[in-house]
């Protein structure tokens, strides 16, 4: 037993804001519909899965930090606050994971620079930095404790879990939010087409709250995060499959994270989180004992993790 507990989950996805919408996306009626995104220079727009706009305005939207913040920060904030729930006691670490980061503001700012740098907006630039969402999280949650932003591919969230669990095990923090978030932009959708023409770019966030003590909202215990399994060449599909297989072998047997949530889309760092969260919810309902997730990263490594589901009579 690791003594590191999953005490909250949060999600923002193309299916909507909140875990409930993510769970509903498992059914055909809950599947989100792609939207069209204009791509300059092309007659045909790109299809992307956007997070639907919401007419509900949570209180944190009015915080001065959030007024000019990018969508990625808002996705991360919503998922983090949902995961945090009413768990308010103890020092709070933050591990924010992303692959593309604040790409929308970065693209807009660079576009302004390319046209005329003398009028490029100083309001945009600070929000382009990778750790801007993490900084807003700390500011809104009032946490001065450790705050790291990790950049990586689809497996980065699992690296984040291991980092947060290490902080908790060392006593550096008493609680830790691990969040992954991405935002859609035409420049990313454009790049994705070079590698997976049939995949649709998706945006959103997923978050978990890890704690050293179990509580009323605790639903699982982090059992393990495997060592990353490297493979030499990302273009070598057999090497990639073999690395993924080594990860699967290293994991204890359990309910594999379900694929339906993202089989039609590519959400980089967030996709595996949605799968993991949806699988944990499903395992709770079906009284499965364990959920595992194995992620074949795009950049020469695969990684996996396992959670023990804590059913009401085992807490």
């Amino acid at each position, binding site marked *: 037993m*690791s003594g*590191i507990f999953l005490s909250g989950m949060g999600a923002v996805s193309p299916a909507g804001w909140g875990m409930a919408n993510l769970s509903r996306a498992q059914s055909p009626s809950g599947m989100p519909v792609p939207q069209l995104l204009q*791509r*300059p*220079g092309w007659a045909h727009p790109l299809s992307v899965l956007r997070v639907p706009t919401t007419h509900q305005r949570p209180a944190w939207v009015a915080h001065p*930090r959030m007024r000019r913040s990018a969508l990625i920060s808002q996705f991360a904030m919503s998922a983090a606050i949902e995961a945090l729930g009413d768990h308010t006691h103890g020092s709070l670490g*933050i591990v924010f994971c992303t*692959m593309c*980061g604040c790409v929308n503001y*970065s*693209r807009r*700012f*660079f*576009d302004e*620079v*390319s046209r*005329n*740098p*003398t009028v*490029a907006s*100083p309001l945009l*630039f*600070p*929000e*382009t*930095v*990778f*750790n*801007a969402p993490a*900084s*807003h999280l*700390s500011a809104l949650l009032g*946490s*001065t*404790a450790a*705050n*790291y*932003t*990790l*950049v*990586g*591919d689809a497996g980065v969230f699992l*690296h984040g*879990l*291991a980092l947060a*669990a*290490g902080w908790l095990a*060392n006593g550096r923090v008493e609680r830790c939010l691990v969040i992954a978030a991405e935002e859609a932009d035409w*420049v990313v959708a454009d*790049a994705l087409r*070079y590698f997976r023409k049939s995949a649709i770019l998706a945006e959103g966030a997923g978050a978990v709250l890890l704690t050293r003590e179990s509580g009323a909202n605790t639903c699982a215990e982090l059992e*393990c*995060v*495997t*060592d*990353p399994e*490297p493979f030499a060449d990302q273009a070598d599909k057999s090497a990639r499959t073999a690395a993924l297989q080594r990860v699967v072998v290293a994991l204890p047997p359990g309910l594999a994270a379900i694929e339906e949530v993202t089989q039609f889309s590519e959400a980089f760092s967030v996709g595996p989180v949605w799968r993991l969260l949806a699988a944990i919810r499903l395992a709770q309902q079906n009284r499965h004992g364990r959920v595992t997730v194995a992620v074949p990263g795009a*950049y020469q*490594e695969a*990684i996996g993790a396992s959670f023990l589901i804590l059913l009401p009579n085992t807490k």
Partner: protein
Amino acid sequence: MLFPRAFSIDGPRRVVVTGCGIVTPLGLGVKANTEGFRIGQSAFRSVTRFDVSQQRVRIAAQVDLPAGFPKMPLTPRQARLLDHAGRMLLWATQEATQQARWNKLPPASLVVGTTGGGMSLGERYYRNAIQQPLKRRQQPTRSIGYQAHRQAALVAQACGLTGPRSVIANACASGANAVGHAWELVRTGQSERVLAAGYDAISQLIFAGFDSLQALSPTRCRPFDAHRDGLALGEGAAALTLETLIAAEARGANILAELVGYGSATDLHHLTQPHPSGDAAVVTMTEACRIAGLSPSDIDYVNAHGTGTPLNDSAEAAAITRWAGSRARTLPVSSTKAGVGHLLGAAGAVEAAACVLALLGQWLPPMLATEMPDPACGFRLITRPESARLTHVMTNSFGFGGANATLIFRRWS
């Protein structure tokens, strides 16, 4: 398993530096940088990498790299995926791992800090996508190569590091956080050996970004000067090989220094501005000293973040003065950004390397451009080259988003 790890049952392990690699505008490698930092050499010149004709400020400290690559197990095709930033990282990590003689040891981990990764490739991708939207040539390569974790994967492969890799992007504290995180991994027994590095190159987006904030100095970078008017950007990379003292001694490694303390905290004041009293900096300096079992009177030199902006330097001056207490008046402080500029995600790692070099050579890096010290500095600013007896040196790094970090190194004798 990445988690749970077998934490050291004998308590924290001592962590030493056995290799150092560095690339800055002062030159390539330890030798050139030792001399440059020791005499306070300045490396600023007109920016040539992109068009700055419409910028308010047009100077920075650029790195000139050799045309080729260091000897390494990457194919030419893989090596070509690395842009200027990735190549600086490659040179620094190769120097550090070769100095540490890590080539025939078991797998080691890599922790890298950066803010921009291969941003120049991202910029090229965007320009091509706009200007020639139907032209696909090299676009896939650019979209992969610009990503920091892809660059880290290539550098790990080049150095023979097959352990876990992490990329920390905590803005301008990234390099210090990378070194600090690597130290935590070794100290707690989670890893035997970790290569910690930081790197960043000047790119048009970042240069224009700092210019748009009017954070760049239109005159010259003068940290802690009463008339300072901004920072100057630079670029570079540095890498330190960290391993346990026991392992280093067992294999007869040449120990350069011991890393004894690390503190990190988050400043909630503003996305780009520090709290005027430097509260988070006080926390990190205090925490690093607590872990090291030291007090301010034990610190012989502080390598300040010292960007040269009015806000950063006044907040850091307040923080150092408050943290050091009665020690402040005689405490030597300087910023190596006076000579090489602000290296962003590389800054923390480069300044950690500069501290190791200062400990080895027993000198204090001067800030020659600082002529009229800000009266708010209640400590001794180093403005001329000096020799000194150094046992413990501290380095501070602060970044956008309130990322603050402090490292303490001890002389190895």
